[in-house]
């Protein structure tokens, strides 16, 4: 009683074994999954959906890299190449990264962490999923009916004049925006109203803080993307005269509108990644997190500053020098809350008893890769440097270090961290570590080379290149194969575990947050009773690591 964050066995033991959400006899069959309002099942369905999108986007990435083995045409025409990198970008951004951590892992874990039975609006959650599916179907349709070759940014005037299925693709982005907004609204209301008794704002697990900050951005930025896409469609269909310079419009206005969403969207992508790292590091360091409040509030700070930096995508677009200087300064400011997080994570690990299980390996990879991605962001935020590096592979490498080296690595870490909780099964630890190593090596092979190419002037999105770049391009392509192999092994390992027996203990890692207090996998209603909070999260002084922890 006094020690609520005790070994979970104490609590589940009182009530005996309940049917878990996967095998609940009251909710059987495909239809019960398709119409479920259980946040755990929706999280799992989102997980399969985003993993499928990741696979498709990844195949396009491998094709792009393969085509770049040699200058000139290998097996794709220039037009096909443009479509391939557009689809890689659009699918990865809109169908994979943005929903990945919040909608899949967040949906599953966040209500558990709050000690809630569900999200605030379970039916809205279901709607969000099906709207996502509808948007995904439209995106796939646009590939089939003509392809899109604009790049994922849909810049005007090209996007208003090119053929293909740009209208369908932008409509799909518009629809996907609704899904994102629904999730955001749901999560904010959930955090405000469904916290367990005794859980104040500063007793929230840091994952919840990160998801909350993300949800704020989702709600406030996405509608602007929605109206921008509508205006773009209108311009294509009716020549309304807003973005097309030939009829008195302003193409740069499109860039402003687009980045007003899409830069905050970068933080929609990275904040949940940081949120996962904030869970993994204290758990595998067996140590109270250092600087809890600063980590929590820095998420909100990133969310807010993130709204004011969109102009740094447009330093070469002819915006005023004053505006560019202000955007540059504000961009530098983002480094402060990001740095606060990094230093607090490292301080948490300092002199701790660290166990290097797979999630922790991903977390340490994150620290290194996100560090590189973040610092090169500072280079690009500096006006004079950006003029040189703008639209080169340096930019490509920078954002892949943030998006892939940051978010995707954190997503993989989170998958390995919560997999036993989600499905009640342990994966093969050795194989998972090998996969992690391959992902890390392959990723660096692929993208570190691109920093060099970019600084030497290799422009992004180009189908061909000067002969001098060939060794680096080839090395990058080899790296993409290593990376692909690592991801494949990780996938086979995780999926393979699903065929095994339910062998995961309730709290395999000795985690302190509430999701570890219920069964693995959790029961349909999450907890046998209403959990209450008496200690701050990550407070290992009051916490007995269960004997069956790994």
């Amino acid at each position, binding site marked *: 009683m006094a020690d609520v964050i005790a070994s979970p066995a104490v609590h589940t033991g009182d009530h005996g074994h309940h049917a878990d959400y996967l095998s609940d006899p009251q909710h059987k069959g495909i239809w019960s999954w398709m119409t479920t309002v259980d946040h755990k099942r929706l999280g799992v369905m989102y997980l399969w959906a985003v993993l499928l999108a990741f696979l498709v986007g990844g195949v396009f990435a491998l094709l792009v890299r393969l085509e770049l083995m040699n200058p000139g045409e290998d097996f794709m025409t220039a037009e096909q190449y443009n479509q391939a990198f557009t689809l890689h970008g659009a699918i990865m951004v809109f169908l994979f990264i943005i929903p990945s951590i919040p909608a899949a892992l967040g949906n599953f874990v966040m209500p558990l962490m709050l000690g809630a039975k569900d999200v605030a609006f*379970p039916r809205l959650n279901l709607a969000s999923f099906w709207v996502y599916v509808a948007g995904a179907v439209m995106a796939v349709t646009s590939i089939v009916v003509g392809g899109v070759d604009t790049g994922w940014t849909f810049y005007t005037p090209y996007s208003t004049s090119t053929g293909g299925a740009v209208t369908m693709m932008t409509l799909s982005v518009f629809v996907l925006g609704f899904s994102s907004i629904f999730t955001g609204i749901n999560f904010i209301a959930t955090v405000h109203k469904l916290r367990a008794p005794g859980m104040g704002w500063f007793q929230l697990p840091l994952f919840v803080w990160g998801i909350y900050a993300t949800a704020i951005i989702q709600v406030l930025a996405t509608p602007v993307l929605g*109206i921008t896409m509508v*205006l773009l469609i209108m311009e294509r269909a009716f020549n309304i*005269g807003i973005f097309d310079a030939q009829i*008195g419009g302003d193409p740069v206005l499109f860039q402003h509108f687009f980045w007003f969403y899409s830069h905050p969207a970068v933080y929609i992508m990275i904040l949940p990644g940081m949120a996962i790292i904030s869970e993994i590091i204290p758990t595998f360091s067996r140590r109270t997190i250092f600087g809890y409040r600063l980590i929590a509030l820095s998420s909100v700070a990133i969310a807010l500053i993130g709204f004011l930096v969109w102009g740094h995508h447009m330093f070469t677009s002819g915006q005023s020098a004053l505006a560019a200087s202000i955007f540059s300064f504000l961009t530098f400011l983002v480094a402060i809350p990001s740095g606060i997080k990094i230093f607090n994570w490292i301080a948490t690990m300092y002199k701790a008893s660290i166990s290097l299980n797979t999630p922790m390996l991903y977390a340490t990879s994150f620290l290194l890769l996100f560090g590189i991605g973040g610092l090169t962001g500072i280079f690009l935020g500096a006006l004079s440097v950006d003029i040189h590096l703008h639209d080169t592979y340096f930019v490509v490498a920078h954002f892949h270090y943030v998006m892939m080296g940051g978010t995707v690595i954190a997503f993989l870490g989170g998958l390995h961290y919560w997999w036993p909780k989600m499905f009640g099964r342990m994966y093969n630890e050795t194989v998972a570590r090998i996969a992690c190593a391959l992902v890390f090596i392959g990723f660096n092979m692929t993208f570190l080379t691109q920093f060099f190419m970019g600084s030497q002037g290799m422009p992004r999105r180009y189908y061909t290149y000067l002969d001098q770049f060939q060794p680096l391009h080839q090395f990058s392509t080899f790296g993409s194969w290593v990376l692909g192999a690592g991801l494949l092994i990780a996938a086979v390992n995780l999926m393979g575990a699903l065929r095994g027996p339910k062998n995961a203990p309730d709290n395999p890692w000795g985690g302190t947050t509430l999701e570890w207090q219920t069964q693995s996998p959790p029961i349909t209603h999450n907890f*046998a*009773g209403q*959990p209450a909070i008496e200690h701050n999260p990550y407070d290992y002084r009051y916490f007995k690591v269960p004997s069956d922890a790994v």
Partner: protein
Amino acid sequence: MSQAHDASLIMQDGHGDGHGEGHAHEHHPFHQHHFTTMEQQFDASKIGMWLFLATEILLFGGLFVGYGIMQSRHLEAFVAGHHHLDWKLGALNTCFLLISSFTMVMAVWAASNNRNGNKRGVLITNLLLTLGFAGGFMVVKYFEYSHKLHDGLLPGKFFSYTGPDAVPNMFVFFSFYFMMTGLHGFHVLGGMGAITYLIIRSIKGDYSSEYFTPVDLIGLYWHLVDLIWIYLFPLLYLIT
């Protein structure tokens, strides 16, 4: 998963400190299982609605910013364009929406004070009045639109007006006029659908002082639709 109550949900394991007790004795038919109390459920819904309204403002915000920038680019064309709008009809519609906001407030008041059905009549009457004014707004809008259609004052490539006061780029004004009032019109239609839903449920007697969340939330939405029009009206009809 059904919303029905399940005995295992209510099971407390000794940690209840006041929050957990509420639902053990009171079972309102519209109480969802994952909320401890009706108040908590109401508050959550209200937060959700306010967030949704924030997204609406940002959605329209893009159009307002676009309007501002294009107006400063093509000032002459915008001024010439606005002379083709009838401010009297716009003012009539403004009155319709303002009054409908009042009747909506009355509906919320009636629903939240409805005990044993004593305010049900007031509730239904006011919802019907709101629906009527919204319909009036759409009828006026219909006449305005058909007038523009007749004159060829249409957005983008459909613009075919060739009168003596035609100015280059006048079509941009009508692009914005139709997009802004059109998007607003869709919201009015959506609101009419929502109010119809409220009327049906009010007739069934679903709303009382214990549960009137949908009336309250759709009321908020309706005020926002009204508020956006309050900005659209001077911007489109009254600028000089």
